[in-house]
């Protein structure tokens, strides 16, 4: 398999995951705001913190109100991280690997993008937004499932899977990072809503139902952190993503260094014991995990992708 194609498959995997995650996050965040009284101190601005793109937002929008933040995250083509941009990049990466992606995969990615381009800019109101974002999430999962079911699980597919799981692991640390900053030291007047807030963290990662099935206790912060970082079975937990990454790496040629790096990351995770950390410690731990994920990405890139001067 060509290095260039491997790279595009990897990014296709990342972008489809990013589009789905971002859409879900916006949808869940909106729902949560409906549930909470104003004094709970939750705002649309907090979404900007998760993605660490407050600066970019401030350059182009005056106020971080609902319509601006939602537009920025779902329909703003100038925001590289918006749902629409992710889907455009997904389509571009699949368009340029059409020679190896099953035709139905390309057609559904193309349709998804055409739908998003038409509907997302009109999805400002609460009601249409919920419906449109749900459509996008479903269609993303459809593309993912279609590729899983029609593409040979050779190197091309493994790069797609690598991209998906790296992106997923990254998103899990980001979603956890916000409560790390605020939820663990809640002021008293918000304390009654603690449960709702942690439930929201779980829902952002589609983890609520599985958490209930496997943890079987009333939702508390420590358990949520533990579940999202260390649960071996939940597909969006950090540990599970690492397992998927390792299994993809093992099937690729010349994988020794990258595999060693992912093993080091797993060791780091197990040492961390996130659930027993205070807010500052958790933030630091998540930061370390994110940096190491970045390192793993660079290792993958150095091992298999085209050198920059050949692109």
């Amino acid at each position, binding site marked *: *398999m060509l290095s*260039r194609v491997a790279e595009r498959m990897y990014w296709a995997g990342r972008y489809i995951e990013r589009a789905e995650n971002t859409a879900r996050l916006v949808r869940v965040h909106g729902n949560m705001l409906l549930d909470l009284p104003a004094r709970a101190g939750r705002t649309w601005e907090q979404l900007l913190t998760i993605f660490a793109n407050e600066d970019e937002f401030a350059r182009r929008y005056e106020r971080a109100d609902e319509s601006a933040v939602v537009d920025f995250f779902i329909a703003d083509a100038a925001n590289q991280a918006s749902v629409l941009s992710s889907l455009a990049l997904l389509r571009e990466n699949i*368009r340029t690997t059409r020679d190896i992606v099953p*035709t139905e995969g390309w057609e559904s990615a193309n*349709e998804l993008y*055409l739908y998003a381009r038409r509907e997302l800019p009109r999805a400002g109101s609460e009601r249409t937004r919920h419906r449109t974002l749900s459509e996008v999430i479903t269609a993303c999962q459809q593309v993912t499932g279609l590729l899983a079911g029609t593409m040979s699980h050779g190197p091309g597919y493994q790069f797609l899977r690598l991209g998906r799981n790296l992106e997923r692991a990254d998103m899990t640390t980001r979603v956890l990072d916000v409560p790390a900053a605020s939820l663990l030291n809640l002021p008293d007047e918000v304390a009654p809503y603690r449960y709702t807030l942690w439930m929201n963290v779980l829902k952002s990662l589609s983890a609520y139902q599985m958490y209930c099935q496997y943890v079987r206790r009333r939702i508390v912060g420590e358990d949520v952190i533990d579940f999202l970082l260390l649960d071996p079975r939940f597909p969006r937990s950090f540990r599970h993503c690492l397992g998927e990454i390792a299994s993809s790496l093992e099937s690729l*040629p*010349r994988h020794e260094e990258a595999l060693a790096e992912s093993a080091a990351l797993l060791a780091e995770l197990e040492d961390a014991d996130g659930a027993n950390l205070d807010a500052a410690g958790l933030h630091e731990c998540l930061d370390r995990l994110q940096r190491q994920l970045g390192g793993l990405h660079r290792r993958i890139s150095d091992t298999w992708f085209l050198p920059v001067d050949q692109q």
Partner: protein
Amino acid sequence: MPPRLTRYDPRAFHDELVTGDGVPRPGTERLIDLLNTLTPAALSERQAAADRAIAEMGITFTVYSEGRNIDRAWPFDIVPRVIPASEWARIDEGLRQRLTALNLFIDDLYNEQNVVRDGVFPAEVLGTSRNYLPECAGVSPRFGVWAHICGSDLVRDGDGTVYVLEDNLRVPSGVSYMLENRSVTKRVFPDLFEDQTILPVDDYPSELFDLLTAIAPTDEREPEVVVLTPGIYNSAYFEHSYLAQRMGAELVEGGDLVVGDDDCVYMRTIEGLTRVHSIYRRIDDTFLDPQVFRPDSMLGVPGLMRAWRKGNVALANAPGSGVADDKMVYTYVPDLIRYYLDQDPIIPNVPTWRCAERDQRGHVLANLAELVVKPANESGGYGMLIGPRASRAELARFRELIQADPRNYIAQPTLALSTTPTVCGETLAPRHVDLRPFILQSDRLAVTAGGLTRVALVEGSLVVNSSQGGGSKDTWVVEDRD
């Protein structure tokens, strides 16, 4: 409601589907019956369904606009163009004859040059050819074939004669649209495919793959075949990836390939370097190898010409094939067929005046307003003068251009290009068409059944190029009924 095509009037033009009074030509009866029964709304609904299918299937071409690349849906008209199989058999034979002669000619030019010595092809025309590449002299590609893939443009004039308008021997494009047009048309008119025999076109990718395997300089059973594209911003990128996918070949860009110290070509894969034997290249000659041609080329592969000259890799088409793609050379093709094959040309050339020759130039300059003038080395319909449509200023400008560089111009009568009924809103109107069949040559020849019919969608326009407002149609070669 009266049958639609009784009111359809191609006027003085030869129409491909009906005679002047709305009577179906042989082979079109079923199609015309169906078109006559469709209500105006049903007709435009079928066109809309086809447009939707094209958007969903992502059949696109890329255009540059305001510094950005835009992927545009491929403009397609649902009414096919029909050719009876008996007529096609003769065209097919004529195309084989033509490419065979052209390849003998190219091989001769880069080796003995007997054609020049025998006075059939003038040395001065060769001397001023921009597409003759001295770097190719002395090379003998496998089977003596240089132009493996040829797209020849055919037109039909008012009296029904089919002419060859030009031969595209460099990197002819359009074949993927021929294939996609067929799959869209099958969705739009499935019933018509059931009750008559329309020759299939979908074996083209396998024919191309066989060709690329046959010319590979190796005895390996599975030589590594790749398609070399200029990249995702090229207007034909869709086609490059389409053909790679259908052949199961890798789609590579210049940066993916490297020539080793052993003068062999390798591609960069996740396993390291892998040997490449056969390259279907879709980039122009002068961009192929920055060490030999344009040093600023970012698209090519340094050392590629060296590897090719040593016979370590096959290139299709071979570099330098474009020498026979020149509109000056075109005027000699009937002579070349007689010279190399001792046969009369089966498909005639459009009568053409060479501005390089004094008396012919005199005729051209005196009749400029009636003629079409073309530069010898442009493609895509650029840089042309259509005399009857030109302003005085344009005529004056071309008069100067021709006098300044007569070798670079040829002139032809303005042909009354044939028409085909084409959907315009809720009605059918005549629009001008041409036809680009594709001919493959390695150790044997293959011709597509029909080809890509291109249509000028603008009323009265003769320009069929997709970059300039043209669209396309499916082409049916229909078996005659006895």
